């Protein structure tokens, strides 16, 4: 095999360097730093697993992981089912202009920055100011307090996350569908497969890696849930969303209880959970297999 000329390699390194430097500065070093804190105490001496065992005994710990579990279940299920089916429907849309317009509309909410999109939802969910007030009243919710009852939060956060995040993924999936070779689709059609069979036996299996990729990233983002409950908490004057997610509990440990070590322990746990889930999906979907 012939080596690539130096110039091409150099350019490649230059392109990657910017990312690598940022990854080291804001990804790797902080992770190492957090691991250091997770295994030491306030006096900087080795503390074994005590930060993990003691933070787990805090009264906020177990509920926070239960909350995030319920939220992830709802959100990931909605994401996989709806994003995939919407992308397929979009792909089979025969009117080209309509398809472009719909793709653009899907993408718009994703263009709003995280906190701004939550602010939009604060208005949506308050029956006194919401444009969807009649719907909220129909469901029996007369006040903001009724809407943000503790039992509703997982669904509400999943709705917000879906609204802000799904559009981008639909566009990505649409791109992936375009990559499916035309002759395979053609062959299927000649064999008499309708839209449903094409989706079931050709498109979805060929999207598998993309779906795995989406689930890995969405899981990592979802496990770090912070902005949504924090803003709902601010807006409801602390009625809902305070200590809701593990990330908030870590934040409270660091800034309210002055305990950076417990905070770091929870952060490391989130990292490990995300890594394990990523590993499972990567191996199961044969993500790195060259096709």
């Amino acid at each position, binding site marked *: 095999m012939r080596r690539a000329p130096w110039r091409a390699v150099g350019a490649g390194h230059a392109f990657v360097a910017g990312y690598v430097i940022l990854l080291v500065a804001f990804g790797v070093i902080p992770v190492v730093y*957090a691991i250091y804190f997770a295994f030491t105490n306030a006096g900087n001496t080795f503390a074994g697993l005590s930060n993990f065992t003691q933070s787990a005994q805090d009264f906020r710990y177990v509920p926070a992981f239960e909350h995030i579990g319920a939220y992830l279940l709802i959100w990931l299920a909605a994401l996989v089912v709806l994003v995939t089916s919407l992308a397929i429907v979009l792909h089979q849309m025969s009117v080209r202009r309509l398809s472009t317009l719909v793709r653009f509309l899907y993408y718009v909410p994703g263009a709003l920055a995280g906190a701004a999109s939550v602010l939009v939802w604060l208005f949506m969910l308050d029956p006194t100011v919401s444009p969807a007030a009649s719907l909220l009243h129909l469901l029996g919710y007369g006040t903001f307090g009724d809407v943000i009852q503790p039992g509703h939060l997982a669904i509400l956060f999943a709705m917000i996350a879906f609204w802000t995040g799904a559009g981008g993924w639909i566009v990505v999936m649409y791109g992936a569908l375009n990559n499916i070779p035309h002759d395979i689709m053609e062959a299927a059609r000649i064999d008499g497969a309708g839209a449903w069979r094409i989706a079931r036996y050709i498109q979805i299996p060929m999207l598998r890696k993309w779906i795995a990729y989406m689930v890995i990233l969405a899981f990592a983002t979802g496990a770090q849930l912070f902005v949504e409950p924090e803003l709902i908490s601010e807006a409801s004057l602390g009625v809902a969303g305070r200590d809701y997610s593990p990330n908030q509990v870590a934040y409270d440990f660091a800034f309210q209880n002055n305990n950076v070590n417990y905070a770091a322990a929870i952060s490391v746990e989130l990292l490990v959970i995300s890594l394990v889930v990523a590993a499972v999906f990567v191996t199961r979907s044969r993500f790195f297999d060259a096709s």
Partner: protein
Amino acid sequence: MALAIRAARARSRLRQSCTRAAIAIAAAALVAVSAAACGSSGSSAGSGGSSGSAGKDGFTQAAQTSGPLTVWVDSTRQPAVQAYEKAHPGVKLNAVLYDGDANGSNTLQTKVDLYDRTGSGWPDVVFSAENNEVSWAQPAGFTAPLNKGLIPSSVLSSFASGALNPCTVNGTVYCLRNDLAPVVLWYNAPLMKQFGYQVPTTWAQYEQIGEEVATQHPGYIVGSAGDTFTPEIYLWASQCQANDITGIRAVTVNVTSPNCQRMAALLDTLVKDGSMTKLSVFSTAFDKDDKGKVLMLPGAAWIGGAVFDSSSGLNTPKGQIAVAPIPQWPGSATPATGNVGGGTWLLSAHSAHLTEAVDFITWVTTNNGYQADLAPGFPASAPAAAAWLANQAKSGYYVNDITPVLQQAAGQVWQGWGYGKFSQEAIWAATVTPGITAGKSIASMLPDWQTAITNYATAAGYQVSH
């Protein structure tokens, strides 16, 4: 709120760039970043106040420089900054608007914690809507001692008796009180007369009126149980032992006692009847639904200015609102009432502009230019309070003279409810308010409330006894 949102947005941006950049490893970076950011050396923290002996004025002072004075206030205190600027055209102020730490949001402590670690960035003077800041800010060395030379004792002694108690640790004063906020009974005098009710002096009479209003004048209300400070209005006034701070880090909590149950039962009855609203007095729904429908409203001294005589609140016309002492339970040796906040001003021990900072903090708490003429609440400084009350009487807004009622109430705040590091407002909001909204009785939630207070107090490092 603005600061919190800005911080949240920054975090969210970081989160997005991390996740979009790569695989799951990078995604966990945000958590690590936020944890790591708190980790860098905190050696500069704790250099001031706590020892109380070192240096001039009782603390180690930073090198003094010239430059603008950084002042953090909430939106309600913005006129104080503007008034100061107007009275001192030569002074440069850098005013930063934040949530005022209201409802136990903890913004100030979070920010100070970060500044402690970076070793810079502290504001020179901060207003807080809470009066328990000293419980963390003094051990953290953020607040400067004020009675060790910075502020003359003649100024300090001009505050109402007991006003500086929440600011005082072992005889050293660490903040100045903005206003006093004893709980009183606000009522609509013409409406009470029209309905034929006497102003209640006991809680039994109050409850009876509430029940009658529910049947005879539905839609009218005699109070609100929807605020984060609901326990500080009703349960504090009922001498419920929810927040009995007995030592630096010790608290006694017993909220299933008869003193708590009697008030919980009263609230439950009236909430069920509908004559006590579940809405917060600061919600848009309250302004919409209850405008002109408020017959009585137990609340702090600042309710008059912040809710009734406020264009952003009920905007009640002049000549309707009057004030009476809070009702009492039979058998109580001395009259007791609650207290909701009464803000505090803190002066940073890290300030490099101490002279200007002292002048500012003294002016906003004692000068008539703000406290008597503009402040919405009852000033903690006695001379300013006298001028403020005279102004209120002159304006003719209130039906009766509010002076004796407020002054008397200020001395009747029950001392069995202290100022701890954990926020009773935040605990109530997260534990009891959702239950009230869902139709559960407060009486049935008292054990949950007890558990929640115990949990949060323990997490804040308190020894809890029951």
